[in-house]
């Protein structure tokens, strides 16, 4: 999810705002509803193309990987000093249901302009994704994710409404785990070898490592 384009939403990511390290261990199950595995918008071939733009002519190996996020839906209401209460579906960012995805590892949150959809996964798969063997760092709790999401949304709303408006933010649904797809592409051409992580939703990329080959 690139910060400025693609899945959109205004990125207001930041560090988890909750002090005290209220972290959960591996397998902190999503409360209530089972987790979802999002369907990638980007195919393996497109991920390969992203890699080859960096390393032309490379031979590559592509692997689909998933990263755990907390999906929180918040309903925002604003009220002017003399105006009637504006609720969902009314104008502007301040009158909408806002989807927020919070990285279950880093605690960084992103406003999403899409409604996450995908296949339901069982608790074991969610536990595996959040387990210590797969990704680095502790898993944050759903409670922390909600607080991060609320903070993000508040910042977003404050930027778009008039000073003096009353803002209320409420959870529209319980936080739910989602597994976000990415493509891990590894490959090399005559001069370099590299590993690049390609976002499965918007095809932005992150260079994990790159090395110059001796022969090159």
């Amino acid at each position, binding site marked *: 999810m690139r910060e400025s384009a693609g899945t959109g939403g205004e990125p207001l990511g930041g560090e988890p705002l909750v002090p005290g390290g209220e972290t959960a261990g591996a397998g902190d199950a999503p409360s209530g509803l089972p987790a979802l595995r999002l369907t990638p918008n980007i195919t393996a071939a497109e991920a390969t193309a992203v890699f080859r733009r960096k390393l032309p002519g490379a031979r590559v190996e592509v692997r689909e*990987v998933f990263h755990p996020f907390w999906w929180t839906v918040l309903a925002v209401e604003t009220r002017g000093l003399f105006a009637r209460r504006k609720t969902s579906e009314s104008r502007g960012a301040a009158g909408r249901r806002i989807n927020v995805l919070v990285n279950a590892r*880093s605690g960084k949150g992103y406003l999403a302009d899409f409604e996450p959809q995908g296949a339901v996964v069982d608790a074991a798969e969610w536990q595996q994704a959040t387990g210590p063997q797969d990704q680095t760092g502790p898993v944050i709790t759903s409670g922390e994710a909600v607080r991060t999401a609320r903070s993000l949304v508040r910042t977003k709303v404050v930027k778009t409404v008039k000073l003096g408006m009353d803002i209320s933010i409420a959870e529209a649904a319980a936080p739910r785990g989602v597994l976000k797809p990415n493509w891990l592409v590894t490959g090399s051409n005559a001069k370099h070898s590299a590993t690049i992580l390609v976002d499965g939703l918007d095809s932005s990329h992150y260079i994990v490592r790159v090395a110059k080959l001796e022969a090159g």
Partner: protein
Amino acid sequence: MNIETWFLVIYFLAMAGIGVWTLKIGTKNNEGFLLGGRSLGPAVTALRLQSSSMSGYMFLGAGSLAYTKGYFSLWYAMGDIGGGVLNLSILGRRMRKLSQILGSLTSIEYLEHRYPSKWTRAIAAPIALFCIFFYVLAQFIAGGRGLEMVTGVSYGWALFIAVGVIVFYTFLGGYLAVAYTDFVQAIIMLIGMVWILIGTMQAIGGWTAGNRAVGEINPNLLTMWGPDGYDSVQWGVIIGAVLVFSIGYMGWPHVNVSHMAMKKPSVARAASMYATGFNLLFIPAPYIVGIMALIILPTLENPELAVFAVADTVLPDFAVGIVMAGIMAAIMSTADALLLQSGTIASQDLMQRFFFRNLSDRQSVWVSRITVLLLAVIGYIVAVNDPPAVAEVVIFSTTVLGAAFVPVYIAAAWWRKANVPGAIASMLLGTISSVVWQLTGLVDVTGVDPMGIGIVCSTLGIIVVSLATQRSHPVPDHVVAAMIETDKIGPIPAHMLTGQNDALAGQVPKDA
């Protein structure tokens, strides 16, 4: 120290303060130093573009032209008024988007990314550096002359102070310093120029009375055909006069870099409104003051000092200080943009590209700074020893810049068939034809301005050579894809961006 000097000192300190402030917020990396982190809104974009285009020429060259040629000089003003909006409309949005897709930080690097060959940059960078040096030289001379007149110190010292202040804040803060000081300076120069105009009108008893008096000196000065009347009109020169400051803008790398620093492509639309408003208020003023100077100071020895001298005559002392700050603002805002651009060309487009590929961001910024210092020293030595006329230097250097770069910048954004050989042919033909035309005196023989000839040659060059070499040198697929995306309104798809998405760092699997 007189009151005018005090105003100037306060002004210099304020500008230096902005430089120090932006040093803290704007130079974290190359994108910060060179493009202000691509963070500028419409007002700053527009006024920065306009103030850096206007230069000391508006106070020395424009006044001088008007003083010697009367209303004929308004041909230049007409080009100038439309130049900003033309530039933003034709290049603004597209250049912003394309430069981000192609990952370009400098306006010369942008040309190389669009026309992918090291020869594009190897030819463009020296041409730009050469012209920019002469242009900046003119600004130094103008700054020195202005300070000399206001403070009474000798020209050498005045020049030294002007160059020192310009270098000081360009040296410290990079693009953000230049952008914000240019923004402030655009406002100051507008106030200053309008003030002189009002003072002039009061002194001559209104525009009608002024025109009547000018008509008594030479009725031809009241026409657009020059002091010798319609029979002596050289249409080629008139066309060149309109072209040099209208479409000529689009070939100036130090001006075009404004497009790349916009917060988002749509900023161009609002910026063109600001630019037009500014131009309508500002540009006619120095020309009209220059014409009316014929009545106020009929025996002026150096016509280049017409606007300065009128200001000194018609305004009260404290106002002269403020107005002089405005004049210095025009000079300094152009000089700092030019200096920064030349530093950028030296570090990014020459040093890093051709000599030290592993130059770090920090080293690269220092190369820029040293280049700025070096050019300032050379410029000072030339300007202090044998200063040429400001208008001549400005018109020559901007003519060559326009002739060399206007077609390649326009075709880069609009024509998918424009390829490397076409771009190289265009730049070479534009430069050579305009320089040869100027130096061999063909202007006087043919009555055709070098800008006109240069633009025709470079335009034909890019069209004919691009079409002839489509098979041997097709435009690369990724450039075509970027141009197709540039046609669309809206955010750039993530996969087209050259830069990586750092937010993905937190999603890297442990076993990657």
